[in-house]
């Protein structure tokens, strides 16, 4: 819009949103970055400038590296599986299969059940001995009890399952929307040409679903760093930090240990990580949109 005073309008429309963004995001984030170069203030000892000391401490902190690798596996486990399942669910629910209405309901239900409450149900499923999984294992197969949450080798996988359960149905909705916008003519044309169903899916539908996939994957990436409510309820990050994730560790450092300086440092790292991941995705997303 080549209006001469376009910029006045631009700024006018922008200013309310920017005001809020500056007040509740940029200003506190800037404070966070500044505090990452200061020591933690304690009642009688004010913060003092210590340069990169917090960062050096972080590099030597084994727990930091542990949660970083946990978070990597958590993301690697939740993102592809929840997106894949979401697409499968959408395809099913969008078909003419019997029971699809109920299935849609079942897939969507986790979205409205607060994780802080549902985590308790999952805890029951995982409980050794009388938990649901063990009742099935023991009752049907005569297998011994398995302590999924109490074993460092399985606890992260158990957390990943909960996260996938929580997210997949939510992402399904977006795929469902996209699927319904694909004109049926395309399918008919493919049928006439004798294209196989898998071929049709791969060459026609997947490309058409690309923007949705990117939208969903941005959400999935952000969630893989943000979804920690169930950890508070189920494991507290244990055993021995085996299920702790970066945001959980930031919470612990900031609100349990009250090491605000160090927490700020960890936060900065998380910001950098997310920037690389999310901004990259967004620019990809941006380009795709222009093609449409």
């Amino acid at each position, binding site marked *: 819009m080549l209006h001469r005073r376009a910029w006045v309008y631009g700024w006018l429309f922008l200013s309310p949103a920017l005001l809020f963004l500056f007040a509740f995001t940029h200003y506190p984030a800037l404070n*966070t970055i500044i505090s990452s170069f200061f020591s933690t203030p304690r009642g009688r000892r004010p913060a003092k400038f210590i340069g990169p000391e917090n960062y050096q401490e972080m590099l030597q902190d084994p727990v930091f590296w542990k949660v970083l690798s946990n978070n990597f596996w958590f993301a690697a486990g939740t993102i592809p599986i929840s997106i894949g399942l979401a697409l499968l669910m959408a395809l099913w629910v969008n078909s003419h*299969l019997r029971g699809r209405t109920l299935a849609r309901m079942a897939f969507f239900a986790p*979205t409205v059940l*607060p994780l802080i409450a549902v985590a308790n149900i999952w*805890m029951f499923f995982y409980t050794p001995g009388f938990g649901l999984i063990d009742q099935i294992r023991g009752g049907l197969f005569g297998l011994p009890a398995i302590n999924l949450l109490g074993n460092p080798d399985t606890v992260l996988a158990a957390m990943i399952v909960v996260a996938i359960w929580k997210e997949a149905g939510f992402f399904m909705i977006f795929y469902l929307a996209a699927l319904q916008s694909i004109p049926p003519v395309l399918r008919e044309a493919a049928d006439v040409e004798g294209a196989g169903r898998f071929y049709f899916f791969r060459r026609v539908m997947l490309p058409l679903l690309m923007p949705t996939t990117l939208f969903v994957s941005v959400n999935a990436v952000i969630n893989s760093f943000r979804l920690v409510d169930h950890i508070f309820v189920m494991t507290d990050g244990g055993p021995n930090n085996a299920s702790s994730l970066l945001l959980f560790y930031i919470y612990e450092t*900031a609100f349990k240990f009250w090491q605000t300086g160090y927490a700020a440092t960890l936060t900065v790292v998380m910001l950098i990580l997310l920037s690389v991941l999310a901004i990259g995705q967004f620019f990809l997303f941006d380009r795709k*949109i222009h093609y449409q």
Partner: protein
Amino acid sequence: MRAGRAGWPDFDTALNTVAMCLLAFLWALPLLYAIWTAIHPAAYETRFVLTAPLTLDNFAKAWAAAPFARYFLNTVMLVTLILICQFVLCTLAAFAFARFRFPGRSLLFTLVLLQLLVMPDILIVENYKTIRAMGLVDTIIAIGLPYFASGFGIFLLRQTFMSIPRELDEAARVEGISFLGLLWRVYIPLAKPTYLAYGLVSVSHHWNNFLWPLIITNSVETRPVTVGLSIFSAVDAGIEWSVINAATLMTSGPLLIAFLLFQRQFVQSFMRAGIR
């Protein structure tokens, strides 16, 4: 998948149906378990026998443990307030980014994108100070304030607005419609599916949010459902599944039922143009 082609044997449909039902069953398990425990005495929390006696005691207990009606009302007000503010602020900002050229646009857009990453969840201490300085501690509006301007919302709407052909708004400008009129009559109606998609993300996020509301509120009149539910997550005395599940059902029930009733309309209107 449509079994349109004659060449596809029926067992394919059957196989898909079975697989879908199986997955749906798995997905519904936590909900089914919640229903089971909520309507049976605590002794049947781990024993699944059909003859178990039915009871409504758990609901009564949960209802008595916290003023859930009020919490529910608060959550609804909170979610609505946030949604309205997000829609208004994000629409204006997205319109500016999509349709105006002004100095500093790219820089500002990058700053907006930054908010995607800086989750308000990790800025709790700083944001508490700000809210305190504004004198708004313990208000519903304070729970929402950090979320009103959403980088995600601005980004999504900007994308949608940019895909709207410019000829449309030039035609409208010729007729002398103001920018706001243009936004209201052309852009917003065309972006409906985006609003719906974004609304869903926003509502589900704030419906589930816990820590910030707990910190910033102190009274029954302002606290959302999640804070009420947390009273049952107290671990010292062991988990009372039957009561916590009754509470969860009570508070999530209305939303679930609404979805059940309106899912067709909801999904369809959502889909009309698809999210792009």
